[in-house]
């Protein structure tokens, strides 16, 4: 653990790493960064106001992220209305580089599609309806592609230190503003989620290499031209991509649930029981709701008030805060850890 408050479980690790050679690389690094080399001694801060774990899930229309609204101060639930989902970048042909909340359903697939979060139909269904009405679905597909060709959307879910999160927002906003300025004057290509991911990983790795990390674990979700991207970055600069992601506590509690749902849906698709291999919007949302409930039951630094970001080709939709029905009656008879009664 990186601190002794006990709220640092958004990022936990084991200490062993056996690689032969019997050479402690880590010690050499520490000696250098604190030793005589003339450099000022760096004081590594510790996380103070922290957010707990975040989730990411790939589904049929794109990516969903989830994070609760709590920013803790140690074990104190200090701020209970903090948004930890950050819609960083949204660009479509009509409004290049425009970042906005609640944009899903607007634009590309518009005329017949109402806001999907209030609608029974998913975008893919709307698209299928449209295609079946048209005489030549191939032409229609081409048009869709053209309309999508400049759409790119990226959203973050951030765990860890909230002031470092705010600093990250500031520098990323700077990058996006510069890009947007360019795109107003020429045919500047949209920033892809992968590009923002690369930039962010470089920032995080550079800071860890200065022994002054940004104390966060970040899940980045994005959709560009219908292709989705989901990646993880943390304070060490460690990166990886996977169809389901979870940080910290959630990597133990929620990741197995996410993987189970994802893999079972994939298997069902391969058996031909269902169309496609990915979870639908409704299924994905139900899985995330369940994960957030499990986390609320077991993670003492969590809050039963959370949001879900839905990133599709149409844009980024950040849901209103919501809560899960919980049942605590079982706890009434519980005394201690063991079998004792009263």
């Amino acid at each position: 653990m990186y601190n002794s408050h006990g709220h640092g479980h958004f990022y936990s690790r084991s200490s062993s790493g056996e690689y032969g050679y019997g050479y402690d690389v880590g010690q050499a690094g520490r000696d250098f960064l604190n030793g005589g080399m003339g450099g000022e001694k760096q004081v590594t801060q510790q996380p103070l106001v922290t957010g707990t774990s975040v989730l990411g899930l790939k589904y049929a229309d794109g990516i969903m992220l989830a994070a609760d609204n709590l920013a803790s101060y140690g074990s104190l639930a200090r701020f209970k209305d903090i948004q930890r989902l950050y819609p960083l970048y949204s660009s479509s042909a009509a409004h290049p580089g425009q970042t906005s909340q609640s944009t899903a359903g607007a634009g590309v697939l518009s005329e017949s599609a109402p806001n999907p979060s209030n609608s029974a139909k998913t975008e893919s269904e709307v698209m299928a309806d449209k295609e079946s009405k048209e005489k030549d679905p191939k032409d229609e597909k081409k048009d869709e592609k053209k309309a999508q060709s400049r759409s790119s959307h990226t959203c973050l879910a951030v765990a860890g230190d909230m002031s470092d999160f705010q600093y990250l927002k500031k520098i990323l906003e700077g990058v996006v503003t510069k890009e947007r300025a360019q795109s107003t004057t020429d045919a500047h290509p949209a920033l892809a989620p992968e590009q923002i991911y690369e930039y962010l990983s470089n920032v995080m790795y550079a800071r860890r290499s200065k022994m002054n990390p940004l104390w966060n674990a970040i899940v980045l979700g994005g959709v560009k031209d219908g292709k989705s991207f989901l990646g993880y970055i943390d304070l060490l600069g460690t990166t990886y991509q996977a169809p389901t992601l979870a940080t910290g506590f959630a990597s133990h509690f929620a990741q197995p649930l996410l993987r189970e749902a994802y893999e079972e849906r994939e298997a069902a698709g391969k058996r031909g029981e269902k169309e496609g291999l990915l979870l639908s919007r409704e299924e994905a949302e139900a899985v995330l709701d369940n994960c957030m409930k499990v986390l609320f039951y077991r993670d003492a630094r969590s809050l039963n008030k959370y949001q879900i970001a839905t990133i599709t080709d149409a844009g980024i939709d950040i849901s209103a805060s919501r809560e899960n029905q919980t049942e605590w009656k079982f706890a009434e008879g519980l005394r201690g850890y063991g079998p004792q009664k009263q």
Partner: protein
Amino acid sequence: MPEAIQHRFDPYSSNGGSILAIAGKDFAVVAGDTRQSEGYSIQSRYQKKVFPLTSKAILAVNGFAADGNNFVKRVKQRLEWYTHAHNKEMPIKSIARLIQTMLYARRMFPYYVYNVLAGIEEDDGTGAVYSFDPVGSYERETCRAAGAAQSLLQPFLDNQIYFRNHTPAPGQPPFDPSTHPLSTVLSILVDSFSSATERHIEVGDFLEGYVILSPGRTSDDLIGEGVKGVLPEGMTVEEQDPEDLDVQSAVAGKGCRVFLVRKELKRD
């Protein structure tokens, strides 16, 4: 906060997995599993740690993944500069020395990475494997395993590739590790990783790597008719277009053929 906590930030982590490379007379094979983990958690089941550098040199990195990725990025940048300056690809021998200096430059804050470089030597077309420790000590070898399952893989290679603890039959010539046919090497590769997957929790999911064939090579190809039996069961092959190899295709080395090989490993 009540007590003043002095807990140091540890800039390193270890991300498991293993890599392996074997050199033949006129080919080289290098591969690694694609699992990335930290402690007991699997972070991703598909994360690359084998990267083509040129059309005849491929680098496998293992250890701390963030350092590995950034090290590969820097090596690729140096190779690009070299290509622009000299209008040719850097020979593998020189890449090996470059990697040494880049690693040793960080002697006081090392890349926590074990590198294995494999490819075809420029002058004589032989298969080459170079292995490094995190601070740049390196040598050319016939085979090398590194990473979490090094202690499981290397003894097997010592026995099967270097013929350790084998004795030639009376009157037979001494063993020569550089004479293994490609089919044997691929079988050894697959068996090594299947076994490491069984016995090491950090190894699994997929095996992914490359086979590089020397320009002069004619026999024992990987694809096409009449080569059944070269490829271990369950392994897939894709020949790589030099342009897809993320190299300076305009000056790609002539004649080396590169194949991407994949095989599923157990996921548990």
